[in-house]
Each structure stands twice: as C-alpha cells, then as structure tokens.
C-alpha cells in the first residue's frame, strides 16, 4: 500500500474515533429510548403547575350553589368558566373563615355587562346553534347595548345580575 494512503487511513481513523467519543459524551442518557428524542422530556412536560381545579372540587364546599345551578339553564356550565382558575382557592381557602380570604385566593366574580355579553351578545354565528336532539335549545342572545342599558330615572347603568341570577338565569 502506498505511503500516502496509509497516512490518510490514519487521519480518518483519528477523526472517526474522536467523533464517536464526542457523540457518546454529548448524547443525553435517555435519548433514543422511545424514539428519536429524549424520553425524559415527557415527565418534564408532565410536571407543571396546575391552575384549573375542576367542578367536582367546587361542590365540596359550595354544594348549595351546585344545587341551585342544577335546575337552571346553566346546569352544564362549569364554575371555572365564569369564575376563572380556582385550584389555589380550592386547596387553601378552607383554612380561612368566610369573608377573611386574602385577595390572592379570591376568585373573580363577574358582575359587569361585558362578562355576560361574551356569550350572550347577539352574533350571527350564534344563531343556528342547535344542541343534541334530546335537549333542543338555543343560547339566549341579547343586544347588550339596547337591552335595558340604563335606569330611566337615575341614568345609572344596569348590571345583568340585578335582574338575572347567574346561577339560575
């Protein structure tokens, strides 16, 4: 074998060995266990902070409201749809007396007109809503600007919840 080929083979061998060492050192331990990715990335993704508790948690303390809600139009509505994420509230509110909750544990109480209008404002895309054949109903739609906006005498803006009970509309 000519001299220059021998040298070339030597150089190639050095590079290949170097590549294998680097490849071994730089590949994470769980890479390739399940596929072309780090298998440990699945538990890393799976352990993150939760915010929404689920409606079963709410009825543990607020059973009265669940009963109220169960016979109204909003029976299927989960509490957190309107009140926002409540896992912290569900976990820690039990330690405090009623009315003494710190602000960080208080949930949002939607009272403004815009809160109700987010679902009930008239929109053409909401017209043809037809639920299951068993429960055929349409969502109640209003024009939030025209629907009883002011008290005619005092000119104070009406809130929806002054006439409608949101738990039993």
């Amino acid at each position: 074998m000519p001299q220059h080929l021998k040298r070339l083979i030597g150089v190639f061998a050095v590079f290949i060995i170097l590549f294998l060492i680097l490849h071994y050192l730089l590949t994470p331990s769980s890479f390739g266990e399940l596929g072309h990715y780090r298998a440990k990335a699945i538990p890393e993704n799976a352990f993150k902070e939760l915010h929404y508790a689920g409606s079963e948690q709410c009825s543990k303390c607020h059973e009265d409201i669940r009963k109220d809600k169960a016979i109204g139009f909003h029976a299927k509505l989960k509490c957190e749809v309107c009140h926002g994420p409540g896992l912290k509230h569900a976990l820690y509110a039990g330690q405090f007396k009623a009315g003494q909750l710190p602000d960080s544990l208080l949930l949002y109480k939607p009272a403004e007109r815009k809160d109700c209008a987010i679902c009930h404002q008239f929109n053409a895309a909401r017209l043809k809503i037809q639920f299951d054949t068993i429960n055929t109903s349409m969502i109640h739609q209003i024009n939030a600007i025209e629907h009883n906006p002011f008290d005619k005498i005092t000119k104070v803006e009406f809130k929806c919840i002054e006439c409608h009970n949101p738990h039993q509309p």
Partner: protein
Amino acid sequence: MRPAKPKVSRRDFFKAGTIIVGGIAVASAFTPYDAVLIAAEKPKKGKWYGIGIDINKCIGCGKCASACKLENNVPKAPFYFRSWVEQYTIKNDGTIIVESPNGGIDGFKQSVPTNEIFKSFFVPKMCNHCAKSPCVQVCPVGATFETPEGIVLVDENYCIGCRYCVQACPYGCRYIHPDKGTVDKCTLCIHRLVKGLQPACFEICPTEARIFGDLNDPESKLNYFLKNHTCMVIKPHLNTGSKLFYNALSSEVR
C-alpha cells in the same frame, strides 16, 4: 464493422440485475418500507388521544383560549396562542371574512351587518396532534416528538429555536416563546392528564363543543362523537394523520 464486445456480457448484466432487484423485493417483505407519507396506524394497545370539536355547538365565547393561556402561562400578548377561536363569515356575494380578535378571548363583535351574511360560524383551533406531524419530521435535533400516546410535545431543554417546525406546521399552531427563545405549543395539558383531569380547554367549554378522549377505547366519549357525526379534519390532502376531528366543517376553513 461490429462494435467492440462490451466488458459485461448481457447474461452477466441480467444475472446481477435479477439478484439486486430480487434481493430488495425479498428484504422489503421482511421489513416493509415505512414511508413518511403513509400515516402511522394507531397502536393496538395503550392510549391514543384524539380530539373532537363540534362547530355547531361553539358559541365563540373564547373561554378555551383564555383558559389555555392561564393554565399554561402562555404570554398574554395577542399573537401567542396555543388555542384560539376564529369566526368565519361568508357573505351573500361569496366573500369569506376570517376574524380572530385576540384569539377570541375578549369576545367577538359581528363586523358584517346581518342581512349581508349568508352564514357564519366559529372554528376553535389548536394543535392537531398529528400522527405523522410535519413539525416532528423537520426538527434537526429531535427536540419535538410524538409520545407513545399520540401527543406531540416539545423538549424545551433540547430545542435550539431554529423555527423550522413553526414553518412546517400547516395549522399554525407553534410559536417562539419570547422569554425562553424556544418553540412552544399545545401539550394537550399532559400535566393535567397524568393527574386524571381533562385538558383545560375541554374542562371549561360551556357548551361541551369540545370532546376529548381515547381513540383506542371503543367506549370513549370521542368514539361516540365520531360515530354519531360527520367529522372531518382540516387539510386532509396533506396526510398529516391529524387527530383533531371537526363536526360540520365547512370547506372554507383553512
């Protein structure tokens, strides 16, 4: 004058050719060619998550979009979304208007007068968790992948932020997180799934327009929904193996 005799005789050429072609044919019978173009079959065992969305039931309240942001700490700026709602309006003259003000979180305002509207509907959008996702195929470092349960995830510690997957996703479901510099997307709330809870957007949908379930479980809510409705995926011609099925999907939706 006859041409010079070729170095390889005709007999030898056919011999070698038959061995090579026949060898490939025999070998492929043992390990069939797994082209990326062919959508993967769902695994026979274990969970295989899928999503159903009933467009007829969606009232466009945008609660799914806001719940997603709150649950997963998605940046509040109006161009980072893992889940969002679009309103499609088809006018009488055939023009199509697509709106999604802040992903639908603040509610929708009807921008076209009612007498000009032929039809209008809301389309909630999110990651399709494709079985053969284009975003996974283009990742140069293996930082995005499909779990054995059919969830497409991102490995934040491994992502180099090259943005290939953002371009590859035909549904526009990925974005670069402004603080981390890595790509971010819907995880199907895997942190809730491991605790036995539903993903946040399914949990709070007020009209139950979103159905979440296991495609491998014949008793699941999702399979019931798929059996009882005429469902379709978005962009079926791309053969992404999408697992997000819409009921009453119009051809205008892209």
